[in-house]
C-alpha cells in the first residue's frame, strides 16, 4: 500500500503560517456580503471544492468552518489559494448530502453562512418526494423514485499456489492449491425501507484445510431489513447477528438465526422474536442455522415504557426463551455438551434527575437440564437477580484547570443460583452472591476507575461444598497528554496507563466432615504502561507484575513478571518497519524453579517498485527456557509480490508472488528436537473488486 502525502496546504497549517505574518500584512476590512461557490464531487470519492472570493481577508478566513452532513470537517480541509478543498475520508453514498459553510463566533456558537444540498454527480438535488407518487405512476418510475440509494460492493481474491520447495513440513498437503475468499456488501434504501446484506466466502481446494470440508463455501452472512415509519418501526434479520439484548437470560449471543422486531418510533413499545442455532456455524449447509432441532432455541422479548418516553422514563422488559443445544462449534471449546433449557425474566430500568441517577434491576427464572432430557441429572429450576444503581455526583461538573470533572458512583448486587444456566447466555458465571461498588472519574483526558467486589459461592448451600469468599479491589487509570511542543516536542503525544488489583480468597464455611482442602490465598497484580505517537512513528511499553500466595501451602506461591515493548516507524512512503519484544519470568517460590520466555518480532513492509513490487518480511524468535524448557524457535515469513495488472474497481488485477516460511527449532539439551522446516510457493493471484452504487 502506498502512502500518499497531501500536496495541497493543510488548511489550519496554512493559516498558522499566514497568521505569523499577519502584523505585516495590510488586512482588508471584513466583507459582509461576499458569497462562495460550491462545486460538488463528480464521483463518490471526488473532492468537494468551495470557491471563496480571491480577495477574502485572512481574518474572515480564520473564522470559517465547514460541515458535511453534520460533521465538522474543518480540520481536514486543504487550502488551494483561498479555495477550500475536501476529499471525503469515505466515498459518499447516493443519498442527498448537505454542505454548510459556517462562521464561527468567539463564544463557540456558529452561524450558517451558506448551505448547499447535493447528490454525488448532481449539482442540484431532486425535486420529487415520495408523497408525490400515486398509484397511477408507471411502476418503473415509481420504483426509481422510491429507490433512494443502492449499492453493491465485493472484494474478491483467488490464488493458485504451487509449492516449489519443502523440507520437513510434517504432513502431506496438495502441491497445487486453489484458495481464496470474498467479502460482499450490498443494500438499498427504498421509501421507508433500508435493506443491507453482507456475506463472505472461502475457497480451498485442499478440503483437509477447508473450514467446512467443501472446496468453496459460505462463511458468515447477515441480511437486515429495517422499516422506519412515522409511527411504527420494525425489521428483521437473517444470518449471523445478535439480538442486542443484555439480560440474565440472553446476552452477547451472536449466532446464525432469524429475528424480527416491531415497535413504535418513539420507542415506547419494542418487541422482538428470535430463533438461533446454539452452535456457532459457518457454511451453506445450514443456511438459517435452525436445521438441527437439537441445537436450536427460540424466544421473545417485549419492552414497554408505560408512562412516558422522556429521558427518565420507566422501562419494563420481559424475556422468554427455550431450546436445546450444545456449547461447542467454531471458536468454542466446552466440556458441557447437550442440554435443554428455558427461562423467563423481567427487567426494570428507570432514571431520575435527567439521567443523573440510573436504576436497573433484573430477575430471571431458568429451567436447565445440563445433560438433556435423556440424562440422569435433574432439571434444575433456579433463579438469578441483578441490581445496579449508578449516580453522577455532579449535576454540572466543576471545571478544574480548564477541564470538567465528572464522577460516577455505582453499587450492584448479583445473586445467581448454583445451577442457573441459560443457553442464550452461555458465558454467564453462576453460583455467586456478589456485592460490588465502583466509581469512574473523568477529568479532561484523565479517566480512572475503581471497582470493589465481595463475592461468595455455594449459593444453593450444598452439603458437600465449602463456601469461599472473594474480596477484591481493582484500580485503573488512563491519561493522554496534549501533543507536546517546543522543548518537549520529542515526547510526541504521550499516554500512560495503569491497571492493578488485589484479591483475597478465603473460607467462610467448611461443612462438617469436609476434608477437601482449605482455601486461603492472596493474588495481586499491577500493570504499568505508556507510549507516544508521532507523525511517522509510535512506541509503547508495559510491565506487569503478578503474585500469588497460597497460605494453605497446597499450591506453590508464584511471581510472574512480564515486560513488553513495541515500536512502529513509517520510514518513507514506501517503507514501514515495526517490531516488538516480550520478556517474561515465572518464579515458583516453593520449588525455586524459574522459567523464562522471550519473544521477539521484527517486520517490514516495503514497496520496492511503486505500484509494482511489494515485499513483506518478518522474523520471530520464541525462546522458552528454565524449568519450562522447550524448543527455541526462529521463524521467518516472507512474500514478494509483483503486480503486473493493478486491480481497479470492476476490473480484475493480476499478481505473481513468491512466498514462504522457514522455521528452525533448537531443542538445546534434547537434540532430537532439532529440526528445520521450510516451504515456498509460487502464487498467481487474481484480485477482483466490484462496486456499483446508485
Amino acid at each position, binding site marked *: 500500500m502506498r502512502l500518499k502525502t497531501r500536496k495541497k496546504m493543510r488548511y489550519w497549517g496554512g493559516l498558522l503560517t499566514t497568521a505569523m505574518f499577519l502584523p505585516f500584512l495590510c488586512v482588508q476590512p471584513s466583507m459582509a456580503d461576499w458569497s462562495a461557490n460550491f462545486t460538488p464531487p463528480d464521483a463518490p470519492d471526488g473532492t468537494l471544492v468551495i470557491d471563496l472570493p480571491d480577495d477574502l481577508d485572512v481574518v474572515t478566513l480564520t473564522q470559517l468552518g465547514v460541515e458535511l452532513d453534520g460533521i465538522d470537517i474543518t480540520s481536514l480541509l486543504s487550502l488551494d489559494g483561498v479555495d477550500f478543498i475536501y476529499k471525503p475520508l469515505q466515498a459518499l453514498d447516493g443519498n442527498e448530502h448537505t454542505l454548510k459553510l459556517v462562521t464561527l463566533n468567539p463564544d463557540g456558537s456558529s452561524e450558517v453562512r451558506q448551505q448547499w444540498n447535493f447528490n454525488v454527480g448532481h449539482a442540484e438535488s431532486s425535486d420529487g418526494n415520495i408523497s408525490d407518487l400515486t398509484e397511477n405512476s408507471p411502476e418503473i418510475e415509481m420504483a426509481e423514485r422510491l429507490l433512494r440509494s443502492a449499492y453493491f460492493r465485493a472484494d474478491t481474491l483467488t490464488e493458485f499456489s504451487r509449492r516449489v520447495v519443502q523440507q520437513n513440513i510434517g504432513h502431506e498437503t496438495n502441491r497445487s492449491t486453489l484458495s481464496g475468499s470474498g467479502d460482499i456488501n450490498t443494500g438499498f434504501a427504498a421509501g421507508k425501507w433500508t435493506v443491507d446484506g453482507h456475506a463472505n466466502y472461502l475457497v480451498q481446494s485442499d478440503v483437509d484445510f477447508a473450514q467446512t470440508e467443501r472446496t468453496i463455501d459460505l462463511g458468515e452472512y447477515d441480511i437486515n431489513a429495517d422499516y422506519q415509519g412515522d409511527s411504527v418501526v420494525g425489521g428483521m434479520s437473517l444470518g449471523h447477528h445478535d439480538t442486542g439484548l443484555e439480560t440474565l437470560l440472553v446476552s452477547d449471543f451472536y449466532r446464525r438465526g432469524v429475528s424480527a422486531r416491531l415497535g413504535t418510533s418513539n420507542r415506547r413499545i419494542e418487541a422482538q422474536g428470535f430463533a438461533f442455532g446454539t452452535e456457532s456455524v459457518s457454511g451453506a449447509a445450514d443456511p438459517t442455522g435452525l436445521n438441527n432441532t437439537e441445537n436450536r432455541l427460540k424466544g421473545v422479548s417485549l419492552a414497554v415504557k408505560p408512562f412516558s418516553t422522556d429521558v427518565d422514563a420507566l422501562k419494563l422488559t420481559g424475556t422468554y426463551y427455550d431450546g436445546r443445544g450444545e456449547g461447542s462449534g467454531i471458536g468454542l471449546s466446552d466440556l458441557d455438551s447437550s442440554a435443554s433449557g428455558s427461562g423467563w425474566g423481567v427487567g426494570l430500568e428507570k432514571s431520575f434527575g435527567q439521567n443523573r441517577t440510573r436504576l436497573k434491576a433484573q430477575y430471571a427464572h431458568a429451567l436447565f437440564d445440563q445433560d438433556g432430557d435423556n440424562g440422569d441429572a435433574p432439571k434444575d429450576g433456579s433463579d438469578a437477580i441483578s441490581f445496579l444503581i449508578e449516580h453522577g455526583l455532579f449535576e454540572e461538573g466543576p471545571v478544574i484547570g480548564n477541564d470538567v470533572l465528572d464522577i460516577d458512583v455505582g453499587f450492584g448486587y448479583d445473586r445467581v443460583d448454583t*445451577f442457573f444456566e441459560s443457553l442464550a447466555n452461555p458465558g454467564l458465571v453462576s453460583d455467586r452472591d456478589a456485592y460490588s461498588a465502583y466509581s469512574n472519574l473523568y477529568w479532561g483526558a484523565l479517566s480512572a476507575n475503581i471497582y470493589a467486589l465481595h463475592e461468595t459461592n455455594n449459593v444453593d448451600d450444598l452439603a458437600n461444598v465449602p463456601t469461599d469468599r472473594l474480596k477484591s479491589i481493582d484500580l485503573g487509570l488512563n491519561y493522554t497528554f496534549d501533543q507536546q511542543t517546543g522543548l518537549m516536542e520529542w515526547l510526541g503525544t504521550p499516554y500512560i496507563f495503569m491497571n492493578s488489583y488485589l484479591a483475597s480468597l478465603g473460607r467462610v464455611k467448611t461443612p462438617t466432615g469436609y476434608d477437601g482442602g482449605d482455601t486461603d490465598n492472596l493474588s495481586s497484580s499491577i500493570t504499568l504502561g505508556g507510549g507516544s505517537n508521532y507523525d511517522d512513528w509510535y512506541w509503547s511499553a508495559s510491565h506487569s507484575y503478578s503474585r500469588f500466595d497460597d497460605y494453605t501451602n497446597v499450591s506453590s506461591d508464584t511471581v510472574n513478571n512480564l515486560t513488553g515493548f513495541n515500536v512502529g516507524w513509517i520510514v518513507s512512503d514506501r517503507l514501514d518497519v515495526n517490531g516488538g519484544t516480550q520478556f517474561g519470568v515465572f518464579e515458583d517460590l516453593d520449588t525455586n524453579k524459574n522459567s523464562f520466555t522471550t519473544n521477539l518480532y521484527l517486520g517490514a513492509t516495503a514497496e520496492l517498485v511503486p505500484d509494482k513490487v511489494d515485499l513483506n518480511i518478518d522474523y520471530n524468535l520464541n525462546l522458552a527456557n528454565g524449568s519450562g524448557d522447550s524448543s527455541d524457535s526462529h521463524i521467518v515469513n516472507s512474500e514478494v509480490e509483483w503486480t503486473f495488472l493493478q486491480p481497479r474497481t470492476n476490473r480484475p488485477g493480476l499478481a505473481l508472488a513468491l512466498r514462504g516460511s522457514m522455521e528452525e527449532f533448537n531443542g538445546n539439551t534434547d537434540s532430537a528436537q532439532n529440526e528445520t522446516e521450510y516451504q515456498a510457493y509460487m502464487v498467481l493471484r487474481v484480485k477482483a473488486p466490484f462496486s456499483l452504487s446508485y
Partner: protein
Amino acid sequence: MIAEANVSSVTVSPQRANVNVKGASALSLTWNVTRFEPTAPTTVLVSSTNAVLQINGSTVANLGGLLSRQSSLAAAQSETLRFNEVLSISPALARKIAEAPAGSVLISRTFTDTQTTGLARLSVFAGTGQGGALSINRIDLKFDNDARTDVIAKGDTRRAIAEINFRSSGLLKGEWRIIDPSASLGSARGRILQVVRQQVVSSGQGRTRIVSPALPTAKNGLYLLTFSVEDADGIAELPVLRYFVLEGATDRPRDNLTTLSPGNGARVSQDTVFAWENVPGALAYQIEIFNPGHSKVVSGKVVSAKDLKLRLSAFSLDNLTSGESYDWRLRAFDQEGRVIGSSPRQLIYMP
C-alpha cells in the same frame, strides 16, 4: 503345592479429590498394589473389575472398567504394580456428590490376585479443590466484530477476543498463536503472537476476557489463530479462528476501538473531553453524534490522527438540544478511506 501369594497393600493417589459441582469431571487416579510371594515362583493375574462410588455406604455407581496385569514373583519377592486410570464423573453423579453429606462419598477399588484381595478408597468432595488450582473449562474465541470466520481488508485493524470461563484462581498462562499465509498450507506450528500472563480470581467460577494484539493483516491469504492455555483440563480441542486477508475497501469493522472518556451515560458539558486510544495506521478520527437508535449523524467532527482527544466545545452544538440524550461513537479512517476502527455506541446526556 498351591502358591499362597498375598496382596499385602493397596493404596490410591490422591487420597482426596474434588469434582465440579456442575457439569462432568475427570479424576486421574493411580492405584498401587503391592504383592508378596512367600513360597514359590508364581505368575498370577492381578485385577480389579471396576471402581465403586459409595455414598453413606451405599453403592451409587460403578465407575471405570477392568484393570488387570500379570504379576510374576520369585519366592520371598515382592513388587508394586501401578495402575493409572481416569474416571469420568457424569453431571448426574456430580450432583449427587455435591448434595451428599461431607465425608460420606468414597470411591474404592478391590484388587485380587485370585487368592487374596486388597482394597483402597479415596474421599470425594465437591467444589473447587485443594488449594484452589486454576482450571479452564470454556474458551469462546471470536473476532472483535463477533464473527468467527472473517474476511479482512489488507491493512485493517482487527483483534480477537478470548472469553474464558474458569474455576478457582491462579495465573492464567496463555499464548496467542498464529499461522501466517506463508505457512498455512503446510506447517501447523505457527508463531507466538503474544504471551499472556494474567492472574485470575473467583470464589468458585469466574470469567475473564483477553484481547489479542492487532492481528497481522499485511499479507494476502489465510491466517489461522488460536489461544492456547495451560490448565485447560476440560478442553479437548482448542478452538481455531480463520481469517482471510485480501485487498479491499468494503470491510465493516465494529466495536474494535477503545474510547477512554466520557463514560457511558455521562452528562456532558462544553468542557467534556472525548478521548480514545491510538489506532495504528489511522489518518483521521471522526466523532459522530446520533439521536439514540438512529443512524443519521446530527453532529460530529473530524480530526487528524495525531489528536487523541477533543473537547465537546469544538463541535457544532447547534444541532444538539439541552435535555436530550444522544449516542456517540468514534471511527478511524486510513489513507485509503477505509474505516479501520469503530467504537461501540455510547450514551451521553446534554443537561
